[in-house]
């Protein structure tokens, strides 16, 4: 679905992203991990056509992205930004209806089909019944769900999500991750919780604006790599309830040996 070849992006004379290549297959969930400032958001914005690459080539569904109109991109691909807030007094339904924008114009006004897409999107994120609620009255997790519903109302083939579980409590983190896994869309998702990254089909590790590793979670999340990228020490545990791997993080510089005095 997505093919990026040797992407770079510069801002203010500084290279933020260096020659990054990756492909995302249809239906695959690709996770992007990396410390703050490593370039995850930048890569997602490039993939979404919101930034123009300084060099390199991008294809979406077999078509070069730089030749596609913004509207055609939006029909194929939806983007849920890390932070998108408003002080307008809009309702949940209004917010989700925005997702129909790429399908409407002066000659094709709002129709009952659009109503159905909106209702369906709300149901998929479990927010039916919230239609008339004011945006400002929603909690963080509810807002994130509405953003995802808005993206779903675009009827995209590809979803890009930028740290959608940021600032959420553990219950909402897990339910958003479950939701993403259940969407069955081609998905690229930036994450910062490494344990949540385990549900992805493949993981890409970003470090200083480079994609330094790409592959299945088990092969990628090695203690050596994580120590280098995140500057933490990892110990792995196994959850006795289902045998899954859990990582525990410790500061790198803490000495395990006894104190010297």
């Amino acid at each position: 679905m997505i093919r990026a070849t040797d992407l770079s992006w510069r801002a203010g004379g500084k290279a933020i992203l260096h020659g990054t290549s990756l492909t995302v297959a249809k239906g695959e969930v690709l996770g992007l991990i990396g410390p703050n400032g490593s370039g995850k958001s930048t890569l997602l914005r490039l993939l979404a056509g919101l930034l123009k690459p300084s060099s390199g080539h991008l294809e979406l569904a077999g078509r070069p992205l730089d030749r596609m109109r913004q509207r055609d991109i939006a029909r194929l691909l939806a983007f849920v930004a890390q932070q998108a807030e408003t002080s307008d007094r809009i309702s949940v339904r209004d917010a989700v209806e925005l997702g129909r924008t790429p399908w409407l114009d002066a000659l094709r006004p709002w129709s009952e089909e659009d109503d159905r897409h909106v209702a369906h999107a709300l149901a998929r994120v479990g927010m039916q019944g919230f239609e008339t609620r004011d945006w400002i009255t929603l909690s963080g997790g509810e807002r994130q769900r509405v953003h995802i519903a808005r993206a779903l109302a675009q009827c995209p083939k590809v979803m890009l999500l930028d740290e959608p579980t940021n600032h959420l409590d553990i219950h909402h983190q897990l339910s958003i991750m479950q939701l993403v896994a259940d969407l069955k869309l081609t998905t690229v998702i930036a994450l910062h919780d490494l344990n949540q990254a385990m549900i992805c089909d493949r993981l890409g590790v970003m470090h200083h604006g480079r994609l330094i590793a790409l592959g299945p979670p088990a092969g990628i999340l090695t203690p050596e790599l994580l120590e280098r990228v995140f500057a933490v020490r990892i110990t792995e545990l196994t959850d006795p309830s289902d045998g899954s791997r859990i990582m525990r993080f410790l500061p790198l510089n803490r000495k395990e040996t006894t104190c010297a005095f």
Partner: protein
Amino acid sequence: MTLALIGTRPRRRGLRAFHGIWIVLILIAALLAGICIGETRIPVSTVLQVMANRFWDAGYVLDPIDEGIIWSYRLPRALVAGGCGTALAVCGVILQSLLRNALADPYLLGISAGASTGAVLIAVVGIGAAAVPMSAGALGGALLAFGLVALLARMAGGGTGLRGAGQIILAGIAGSQLFNAMTSFLIARSANAEQARGIMYWLLGNLSGIRWDDVWLALAAAILLLIVAFWHMRALDAFTFGAESAASLGIPVRQVQVVLIVVSAMATAVMVSITGSIGFVGLVVPHAARFLVGVRHALLVPASALIGMVFLIAADIMSRIMIPGQTLPIGVVTALVGAPVFAVILIRARTVSR
């Protein structure tokens, strides 16, 4: 105005005809009020007879003085007031959406001041005080002012939120001061005393001496702006979560911003060159409209257009009857209403964004 209802939601479709009738009734009532009320009160029947004479050669025998007041003085004045109110209100809606700023308004952002400078420059340089070249000069001034203010706000670290909102308004005040000073300089340097007084009076926002030529220009600008705003109503909605979100919804953001800002500056420039700069309409009216119909532009644009029209016609009536025997500049009346509302919005904005 029938355009007003295209694109509302289908579940409200049954109400469309109903709303359409209301809009036409309000339009006619406002124009009639603007024509009838004034130093000499004119009965509605006389107004209708004049219209019948003009449009259908009905041949009613009327006092030519009444007929003159109605046809050459009050009707053009009411039409320009209405067109100007519509245009300034819709400009406010557009700027508030694009800049994500509840305080955006052509007057506060210095666009009107820039337009004044441009128009005065054309007037004193001597190309003449005709509406079209003055509008062109005003457009240049308006775009220059907007560019300058936007740049200044950006350098001062603008953005969304109340702090960013404050920055761009401060930049707008700085821009207004600069352009007003330039206008004063131009007048002091190049105009004789009589010209200077005329220009000063016009600058305060003034509907005296409106002619039919002005009416056509004002209505054309207002209608063009309305059409462009309608065409972009979904784009304006899509800016709800900011420009990047709009782009991800398929809006060609740069292109939409340029088109909407140029057309808004054009409409502001035309209105300023005809009526001087009338403040606070673009600020007050969209807020009132949002209060009534919500934030979606399919309703917000027509509601603002209608309320803006009624507001300025009413303000014009007030300006003519507040002090007997004297006509106040209309800008004074809108400021008397607008400044307190501005204060209320400021206070509410603080409580909303913490």
